[in-house]
């Protein structure tokens, strides 16, 4: 009897929840008379709130379109998007940061901006964007992606630690990787057998930055050739692996993994685990927050600085690696016009630089256009955030993206896997041969994709 009652209660509760749950909606409804632009992005938490505010600002500025932002945290964002496109229910606009632009453009999963916007506006957009931002979206002579935030990486250093170890003031920049090595060695500490502090430890995902800094090219655009076994890249990788040779593979792996379990995914530099860390501009906020916290506690805050990647400007001029967030308009987007309006709003085109500056300040993002970073509003922000200013400065140097070529996402992965293997295990690897093998496989894949007729399907376009 009691069992029966509990089952009935259980069923009743379920029914109530089901009825209630299917009737409530998680996002705000689109007002009557406005055209809805469904916008997918992957920001969540604090960044998600910033995005919501930007969207609200846009919606207030508009009478025709209404952007409904959908946060899609989780893994394999691209995959979900691809499923939505092939499933026949794509969003109208997305923002993401993986190197898939060329691949998807090649497979005709995207609209180029030329297809959805007036030619004259697209031209102006191309002029508007910084070279680094533009390079992230151009494929086959057309603009398939519009960058709305650059991610630039540089070497953060703990100035107090570095100066204590070197017993002299920290240099304003590093002249070579040798100098970085000597700083790193001076700052590495052991407790018995166990590493407690590492001067510097290359991140396996950043051969993409060190390769160009060493003067290497991952792809030869003239001959359409994958060139991962470029001598400069092999040298860069060998240099990264030298850290494993010095510290031991297991130490490297353990030390690296333990970073992940710092409280609240803390920036490891702040935990004094490293003296130098290669990371992106978003860490400036973490550093500033930590410094503020020390001040509140009445301690003198630790000083931090930023170095650009040491590179030889006479040799190639390439300064490092850039990636960033880009807007994409999936083919069959029902509101491509509205999507374009929102892109213009976010990037600040057509005299909206103050709005764009506000956006960049809110998110701690690097502007993609010079007028935005030069705006009074943004300059005022930079005056208060000297570390961030360095990154904005670097964004205007020659930063190289992952090549825009079909298969780039796989290329990116395979290279990172190789570096990870080379750095985290004692396995003896012939770096040059392995890099050559990756190039060869990528080349095969490219050849297979090869000559595909560029039939443009206008079926789902909204004119």
């Amino acid at each position, binding site marked *: 009897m009691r069992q029966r009652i509990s089952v009935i209660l259980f069923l009743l509760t379920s029914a109530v929840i089901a009825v209630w749950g299917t009737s409530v909606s998680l996002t705000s409804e689109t007002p009557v008379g406005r055209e809805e632009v469904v916008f997918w992005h992957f920001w969540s938490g604090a960044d998600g709130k910033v995005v919501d505010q930007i969207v609200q600002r846009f919606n207030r500025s508009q009478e025709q379109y209404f952007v409904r932002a959908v946060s899609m945290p989780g893994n*394999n964002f691209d995959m979900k998007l691809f499923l939505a496109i092939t499933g026949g229910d794509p969003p109208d606009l997305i923002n993401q940061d993986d190197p898939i632009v060329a691949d998807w453009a090649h497979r005709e999963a995207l609209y180029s901006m030329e297809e959805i916007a007036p030619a004259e506006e697209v031209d102006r957009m191309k002029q508007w964007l910084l070279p680094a931002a533009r390079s992230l979206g151009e494929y086959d002579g057309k603009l398939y992606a519009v960058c709305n935030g650059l991610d630039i990486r540089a070497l953060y250093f703990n100035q107090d630690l570095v100066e204590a170890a070197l017993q002299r003031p920290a240099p304003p920049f590093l002249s070579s990787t040798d100098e970085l090595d000597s700083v790193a060695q001076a700052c590495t500490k052991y407790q018995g057998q*166990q590493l407690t502090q590492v001067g510097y430890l290359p991140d396996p995902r950043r051969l993409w930055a060190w390769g160009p800094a060493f003067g290497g090219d991952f792809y030869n655009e003239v001959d359409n050739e994958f060139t991962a076994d470029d001598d400069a890249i092999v040298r860069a990788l060998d240099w990264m692996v030298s850290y494993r040779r010095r510290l031991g593979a*297991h130490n490297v*792996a*353990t030390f690296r993994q*333990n970073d992940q379990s710092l409280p609240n995914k803390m920036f490891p530099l702040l935990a004094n685990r490293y003296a130098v860390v290669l990371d992106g501009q978003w860490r400036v906020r973490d550093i500033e927050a930590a410094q503020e916290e020390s001040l509140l506690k009445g301690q003198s805050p630790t000083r931090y600085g930023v170095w650009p990647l040491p590179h030889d400007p006479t040799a190639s001029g390439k300064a490092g690696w850039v990636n960033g967030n880009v807007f994409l308009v999936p083919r069959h987007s029902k509101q491509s016009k509205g999507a374009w309006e929102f892109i213009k709003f976010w990037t600040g085109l057509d005299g909206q630089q103050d709005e764009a500056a506000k956006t960049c300040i809110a998110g701690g993002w690097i502007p993609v256009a010079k007028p935005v970073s030069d705006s009074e509003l943004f300059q005022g922000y930079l005056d208060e955030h000297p570390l961030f200013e360095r990154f904005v400065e670097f964004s205007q140097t020659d930063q190289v993206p992952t090549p825009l070529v079909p298969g780039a996402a*796989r290329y990116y992965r395979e290279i990172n896997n190789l570096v990870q*293997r080379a750095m985290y295990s004692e396995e003896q690897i012939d770096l040059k041969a392995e890099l050559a093998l990756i190039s060869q496989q990528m080349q095969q894949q490219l050849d297979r994709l090869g000559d595909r007729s560029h039939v443009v399907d206008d079926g789902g376009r909204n004119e």
Partner: protein
Amino acid sequence: MSAVTQRRRRLSGWIFVSPWLLGLLILFIYPFIASFLWSFTEYDLLTSPRYVGTDHYQRIAQEIASGEGFGKALVNTVYFAVVSVPLSIFMAISLAVMLNWKVRGQAIFRTLFYLPSMVPIVASSILWLWLLDPRDGMVNGFLGFFYEVPPLWFQGIQEAISLDTPLQFGSKDGLAMMSLWGVGNFMLIYLAAIGDIEPSLYHAAELDGAGVWQKFRHITLPMLSPIIFFNLILGIIQSVQAFTQVYIVSEGTGQPAESSLMISLQLFLSAFRDLEMGYASAIAWVLFALLGLATWGLFRTSKNWVHYRGVRM
């Protein structure tokens, strides 16, 4: 019975099974043919398929030889199966034997042993991700007494059963550990089978002076052999199909460095992340063939060790 009712009964047979027939047609026969045909094409679902002959099968053969891509996933899956299947058979039988002891509170113990199997796989993945955290995980908190450098579990590419890194538990060992925790279903099957064994067999053995181990070795184990065989085959199939837990602990990528990239995840990612439907279909078929081969091989050897009702087959 009249001829009309006869015919009606015959026809109603087809009518009753018609839902399944429809399912067979659209969920099996059509996909079966389509994926076979696609495996000979370059296809991304966005543009029309292009015939490429046996390219994908050649690529798979190459990858098996070089241990990359599918080859890597195959090696990972085999490692996972070889570690987890025998251990879970051993575990399930041990637990079943223990539950068969006539002690007070038998039912409670059975519930306690079985309960972990009711934990949804998503929840148990989250749970073990935390328990096996290299730094904050309880398991390493305990292992810290024995290891100078505690194992990395889901963050590590090591393999505990290897010459290079013996007992350094890596991502696949973590997954095996998870599957051991959920052996409840097979434990119950073994328990029922042990209950079905004629007590007279044990009495006879006792009269011959057999000890506990001898009784287990010569009566219990042979009587359980058909179920062990069933468990072995199902275990292999389950290892090959392991997806959810792999997806969650490796954040949908098979990381670190593809050390937890199992076949089902590799196939899924090839298809829907890399947009290579042709290659993925070819993998599915190779997998189908390999599974068939393994099952057939097991059936062949089973004649030597599986006893049906005490009679060797």
